[in-house]
């Protein structure tokens, strides 16, 4: 089955600078795809090309099979966009902004009214619907932008740093809504700096650096893939010998830290099985067992070549 987004050799140059350099990836139906990268890596430029806002210098983008260059209207009809900077009309009220979106997406007035009311209620803006947007806080503007993007019930949603600089209430509201949308089948393309957000939300992440994709995979697989040597933290309810632990299959070393053992292993799966068997054979119950995979933050820093501050 073809992907919802199919980007092939996507390229964009600004003068002598290649901002996006032959980027290719596919986003599958129903997934949340995180697009990560340091500042200036090409995330926003890529998103703008995917959404048809800026033309590409090379490559191709297909959205639900529609070429964004040849059939831009058909492609855009099927997605919604939440940009990084709020771009609602500040001289209009929230309701007028939504009605405008309804007309631009060809919605019947009844449906636009019903959807607007539901979305504004869900996002806590219904009581302020007749107020001009220029009086809104940043969080309220961002929630309105989300409502505008969702009005026509798109099958695909692009979000560029949707929670950047928002208060906790707005952030939680937006994240909860994204989860609910995804559960209902909406495919989500999420550009974010927030590793924790990407780790918790995304089925797969793509990491871009210097305009090139350096990794695409599920967050957990990326975490385990970057370290050849895995670390496991284990504690028992009795004394055990470090030498015995080091000699177990799959385990290359064991070091005591307080009441726990830090195990290094080449194969995490074999090591855990060995520890469980060891516990059963020696009658030493396992109290805690944690795999210490690197965080997505560490994966990001490693893959983008940046140092932890």
């Amino acid at each position, binding site marked *: 089955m073809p992907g919802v987004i199919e980007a092939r050799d996507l390229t964009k140059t600004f003068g002598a600078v290649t901002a996006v350099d032959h980027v290719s990836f596919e986003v599958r139906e129903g997934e949340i795809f995180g697009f990560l990268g340091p500042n200036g890596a090409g995330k926003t430029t890529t998103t*703008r090309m995917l*959404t*048809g*806002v*800026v*033309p590409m210098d090379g490559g191709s983008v297909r959205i639900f099979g529609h070429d964004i260059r040849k*059939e*831009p*209207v*058909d492609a*855009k*009809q099927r997605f919604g*966009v939440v*940009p990084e*900077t709020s*771009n*609602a*009309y*500040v*001289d*209009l009220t929230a309701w*007028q902004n939504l009605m*405008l*979106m309804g*007309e*631009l*997406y*060809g919605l019947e007035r009844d449906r636009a009214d019903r959807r607007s009311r539901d979305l504004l209620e869900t996002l806590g803006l219904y009581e302020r619907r007749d107020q001009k947007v220029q009086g809104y806080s940043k969080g309220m503007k961002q929630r309105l932008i989300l409502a*505008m993007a969702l009005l026509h019930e798109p099958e695909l949603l692009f979000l560029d740093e949707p929670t950047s600089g928002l208060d906790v209430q707005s952030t939680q509201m937006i994240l909860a809504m994204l989860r609910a949308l995804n559960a209902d089948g909406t495919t989500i393309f999420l550009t974010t700096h927030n590793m924790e957000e990407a780790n918790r939300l995304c089925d797969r992440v793509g990491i871009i650096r210097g305009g090139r994709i350096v990794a695409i995979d599920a967050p957990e697989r990326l975490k385990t893939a970057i370290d050849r040597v895995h670390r496991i933290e284990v504690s028992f309810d009795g004394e055990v010998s470090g030498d015995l632990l080091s000699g177990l299959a799959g385990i290359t070393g064991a070091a005591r830290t307080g009441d726990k053992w830090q195990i290094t292993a080449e194969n995490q799966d074999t090591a855990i099985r060995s520890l469980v068997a060891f516990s059963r054979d020696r009658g030493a119950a396992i109290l805690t067992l944690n795999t210490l995979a690197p965080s997505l933050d560490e994966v990001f820093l490693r893959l983008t070549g940046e140092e932890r501050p």
Partner: protein
Amino acid sequence: MNPAGTSEQVRRAWAIAKKDIRIYYSKGPVLIFGIFMPVFLFLAFFMGGRQLPLAFLLSGLMGMTLFFTSTAVSPAIFPWEGQAKTLERLAACPITIEAIVLGDMIASILFGIGVTAVTLLIALALGLPLLHGIALGSAVLLAAVCFSAIGMLLAAPPTNVPSNIMMLSSLLKFPLVFISGIFVPLEQMPEWGLYLAVCSPLTYFTDLVRYSFTGAHYFPVPLDIAALCLFTLVFTAATMHLHRRSMPRRM
């Protein structure tokens, strides 16, 4: 529903026009360049002691009003929207660039026609006889489209600074007013002035307005209409073409 179909795109262009009417009609620069400027220019000439008949002056005022109002809204919309990033929102919506331009032109046309209608009422209230109503109506409609296309054309340079466009706009509009037979009748113009006058669409519109009120005209009426049609087609096509090229550079 075929979102890319012509009828659907025209509907969406109308949505753009409604948005423009709500937001931009009351903006300061639009009121200054669209309404106050032609009124003060007219008053300056009216009270300047020149012995020109009222019918001539009011016809000129109508011509000038439509020209200034129809070119007041359209040049500023793209730079304003580029600056506010709302243009990026429109670019991500299922609407073609041509439909966005058409929507802006419709808002401009309606603004021009609305304010010109007030001038017409003033002229009628002052006792000016309307001899050729259909000719006047057709001329106003045609010229409003033509002038709004000129306005959009002025907004084609991909700058997001409205004052730059307003400056460019004034640079073109004021000389056009003086060479188009509004304050100086074409009959009294020197030969070089006439060469310039035939290049201005405002000349043909003013000539048609004078014909509608006084029955007198400099060019044959069919030529006035044909010239306005030609200018409208050329400016509209040029506007669509240039905005298609320049819009991505505003993002």
